[in-house]
């Protein structure tokens, strides 16, 4: 490869991002796309500009806003033409219009799981299947997706359904201005590569090494390997190779695998041990007698399969972003974090696309709370057309193509009931002795089961040691909730003030998303860590009271379940200060407790309704 910055070890973030743009332009359909994490800025603009230059001139590049409706995304009834022609006319959606090109999703971190799922399905099938508004169509949509991710917080990411399908997960935050002027691959080279792509062969030993490397890096999904194969082939085409070489595969490994790695392979010199938690896929790829069947027919004159795999792992590892690497080193549960993203956003963006869920279509004129449903209106008007035309003729006026009367109006009503998010704040400190903690966990799980039946969201905050931690952002998945509960350790101080503050933050975020938060504290109220993390009971109590009062001002519904053996005055006081219901655990069997939470939730929904109404 002639370009100095395009080799497998593409060192600067910008060089590898630019390489990714070129590769994506070589094979948008196979590579599926890229997630570009960066705030709006020169780097992102330059990257998008570069991609535009690389794509064929006639290839469309369509930008999609997060609030896009399904009818624009997938296609639907073209109302204007339908009315003009007097028969249903289909309208193509953006995804179909972008066939052969790239779709750019603006603010992808705000995308709803539903929309993301639809786009993901189109990526998989290469076609849009339409079943809407009385239309049933299939149209080709061979597209690549660029998801612009402007998330700041760790859990603020585009839905996993989508980014899991995209080969490149780029981060342009660390790109410095001076990098941008560095020379890049000329567009003509990309065009040549595109023509060559079809004929590039893939030696089996390299494919084996690529797959092994993904396992060694703890990447669970096979999709990553499939994507890496496409990227390697595009890289070979770009470099002018007839067959995929080790370098090409290494490029693929560094671009596709590095951001997805969940473990650092063992036998790594600079690190003590692989992360202890989260047993990764059980293979030990660095094991020398790992079966590598195709080895026998391997007659390439280069590295043997093991060396090849090691080389790829090394390259991928070198490309792992520093932050992720640090987390991996700490043995943090990176995988569950990555997974948590999709679910947590699921509830988030929904509010934008819908105001409550569409519940029914009824006759009547539109009001501020309903929306005219044109298709249903047309349907209602349809049977009367001949009659009305006659009428019109009698009245001596020319009938319009479709004669619509007021009585035909059909409106979609929305269920305004906002989702309830029950936020559990569990005291995992030393003062809640181990057995009490177990009971608290049991209580939480019973409540969770109930939330699940009501299809509400659940969030979980635990506090111990110096500060509170959001273990589970609001989710509907009982599986995830149970997992994070099971891993809840106990012991340490009681940072009550921090817990209340964190609860307030989560609750506020929920309210911003249009959900109704209900806070359930499980604690004995014996705070001994002040807000700033210093020990000392008096300061801690004062801080806790102050936080509780602040919580009350926001008007969230709350209840406090006292986990102590005997009623604690401090817990009672705290409950009173935050305007929470007080409940002592021994007398609250599971049913009573779940009823209490339900009642609190019902109250709060009613209250929210009043505020909004």
């Amino acid at each position: 490869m002639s370009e100095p910055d395009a080799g497998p070890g593409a060192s600067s973030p910008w060089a590898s991002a630019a390489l990714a743009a070129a590769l994506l332009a070589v094979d948008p359909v196979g590579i599926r796309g890229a997630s570009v994490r960066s705030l709006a800025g020169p780097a992102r603009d330059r990257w998008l500009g570069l991609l535009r230059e690389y794509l064929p001139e006639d290839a469309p590049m369509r930008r999609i806003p997060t609030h896009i409706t399904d009818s624009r995304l997938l296609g639907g009834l073209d109302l204007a033409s339908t009315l003009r022609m007097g028969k249903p006319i289909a309208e193509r959606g953006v995804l179909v219009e972008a066939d052969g090109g790239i779709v750019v999703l603006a603010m992808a971190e705000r995308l709803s799981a539903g929309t993301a799922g639809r786009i993901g399905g189109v990526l998989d099938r290469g076609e849009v299947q339409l079943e809407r508004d009385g239309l049933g169509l299939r149209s080709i949509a061979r597209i690549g997706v660029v998801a612009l991710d402007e998330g700041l917080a760790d859990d603020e990411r585009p839905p996993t359904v989508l980014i899991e399908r995209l080969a490149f997960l780029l981060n342009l935050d660390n790109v410095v201005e001076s990098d941008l002027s560095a020379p890049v691959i000329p567009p003509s080279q990309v065009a040549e590569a595109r023509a060559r792509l079809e004929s590039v062969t893939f030696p089996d030993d390299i494919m084996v090494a690529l797959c092994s490397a993904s396992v060694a890096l703890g990447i669970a999904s096979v999709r990553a390997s499939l994507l890496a194969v496409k990227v390697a082939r595009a890289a070979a085409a770009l470099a002018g190779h007839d067959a995929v070489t080790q370098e090409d595969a290494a490029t693929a490994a560094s671009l596709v695998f590095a951001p997805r790695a969940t473990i650092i392979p063992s036998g790594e010199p600079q690190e003590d041990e692989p992360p202890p938690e989260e047993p990764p896929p059980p293979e030990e790829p660095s094991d020398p007698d790992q079966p590598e069947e195709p080895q026998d027919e391997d007659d390439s004159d280069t590295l043997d399969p093991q060396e090849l795999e090691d080389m790829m792992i090394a390259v991928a590892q070198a490309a792992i972003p520093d932050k992720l690497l640090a987390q991996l080193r700490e043995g943090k549960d990176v995988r569950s974090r990555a997974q948590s993203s999709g679910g947590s956003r699921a509830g988030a963006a929904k509010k934008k696309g819908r105001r409550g869920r569409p519940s029914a279509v009824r006759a009547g004129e539109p009001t501020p709370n309903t929306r005219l449903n044109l298709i249903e209106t047309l349907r209602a008007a349809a049977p009367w057309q001949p009659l009305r035309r006659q009428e019109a003729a009698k009245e001596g006026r020319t009938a319009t193509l479709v004669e619509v009367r007021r009585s035909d109006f059909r409106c979609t009503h929305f269920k305004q009931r906002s989702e309830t998010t029950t936020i559990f704040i569990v005291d995992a400190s030393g003062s809640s002795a181990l057995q009490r903690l177990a009971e608290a966990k049991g209580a939480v799980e019973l409540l969770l089961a109930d939330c699940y039946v009501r299809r509400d969201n659940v969030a979980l905050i635990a506090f111990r040691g110096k500060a509170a931690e959001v273990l589970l952002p609001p989710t509907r998945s009982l599986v995830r909730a149970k997992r994070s509960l099971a891993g809840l350790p106990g012991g340490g101080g009681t940072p009550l003030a921090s817990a209340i503050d964190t609860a307030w933050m989560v609750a506020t975020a929920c309210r911003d998303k249009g959900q109704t938060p209900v806070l359930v504290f499980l604690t004995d109220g014996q705070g001994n860590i002040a807000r700033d993390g210093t020990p000392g009971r008096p300061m801690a109590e004062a801080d806790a009271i102050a936080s509780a009062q602040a919580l009350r001002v926001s008007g969230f519904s709350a209840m406090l379940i006292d986990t102590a053996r005997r009623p604690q005055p401090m817990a009672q006081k705290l409950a009173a200060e935050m305007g929470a219901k007080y409940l002592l655990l021994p007398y609250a069997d599971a049913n009573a407790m779940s009823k209490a939470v339900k009642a609190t939730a019902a109250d709060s929904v009613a209250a929210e309704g009043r505020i909004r109404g």
Partner: protein
Amino acid sequence: MRVVFPFSAIVGQDEMKQALLVAAVSPTIGGVLVLGDRGTGKSTAVRALATLLPKMAVVTGCRYSSDPATDDKKCVDGCNGHHGVNGQKPEVSYVPVPVVDLPLGATEDRVVGALDLERALTQGVKAFEPGLLARANRGFLYIDEVNLLEDHLIDVLLDVAASGENVVEREGISIRHPARFVLVGSGNPEEGELRPQLLDRFGLSVEIRTPTDLAARIEVVRRRDAFDRDPEAFVAQWAEEDAKIGALIVAARDRLPNISVSDAVLEQASKLCMILGTDGLRGELTLLRTARAVAALDGADEVLSDHLRRVAPSSLRHRLRRNVLDDAGSTVRIERAMEEVFGK
């Protein structure tokens, strides 16, 4: 039609493949739910299944795919099953078994059917335009990401899947038509839970995982790449294997009515369900039906304990009463119960 990845070329995932074959042999089992990690070939398998199945006989032109052998005189399209129209025997054609996708963005009118807008507007005729449920009659209805499906569509599905009939009462249309289909859903439990009622509609529930075996993973990538590069050639390469499975399904269907179940096996099934405390009789019924279908696929004449053992996890997994305090997964609980019943 687009070329789909061949069923026989799917690496591993035996439980899922078995469940899909069982559903193909014995549609009364009531659908398959496939839950599992992303990128494990859930959708691929379902789409591939359709190409395996032998073609089915339908009354030509019937929009509800009426069976020409049926005695049903009530077909809404007026084809009247084998009685035909005006004493004329119906014309029969053979079509592939429908596998209908229910895409996530579908609207209710497309699912249940609605007034035919075009004919209504242009001719003033009140005609019914059948929806996806009609098209899926006698075939498969596939919902990817079933846990992301909107609630009001789930409500519709629940009712139809239970009754086998789609009742439409909207915009002056009052119609009912058969809608017997095998519901196949797939999803990732991390994305959200399924309503218990919907869970219950599925006869079998399968959990699938990413293959952890390196050789299997490499094979997945290798085959997928080969398919992507030249779909037609790849399908041709596997056509023989696919045909074998197709023949197996046909043979199993023929054999199914004659498969006997001994009292001993019946007792084992009941005992298993009792130990697990499954709700109602559905679990037991599904367990036996599935075991019979597997026995038929095996070429056996009667259901043996081994068949029960093989199908118990998928038939019962989703019917266990949820015990929130028991951390052991459903699969583990079933394994424990099986040890108790069948011995180690």
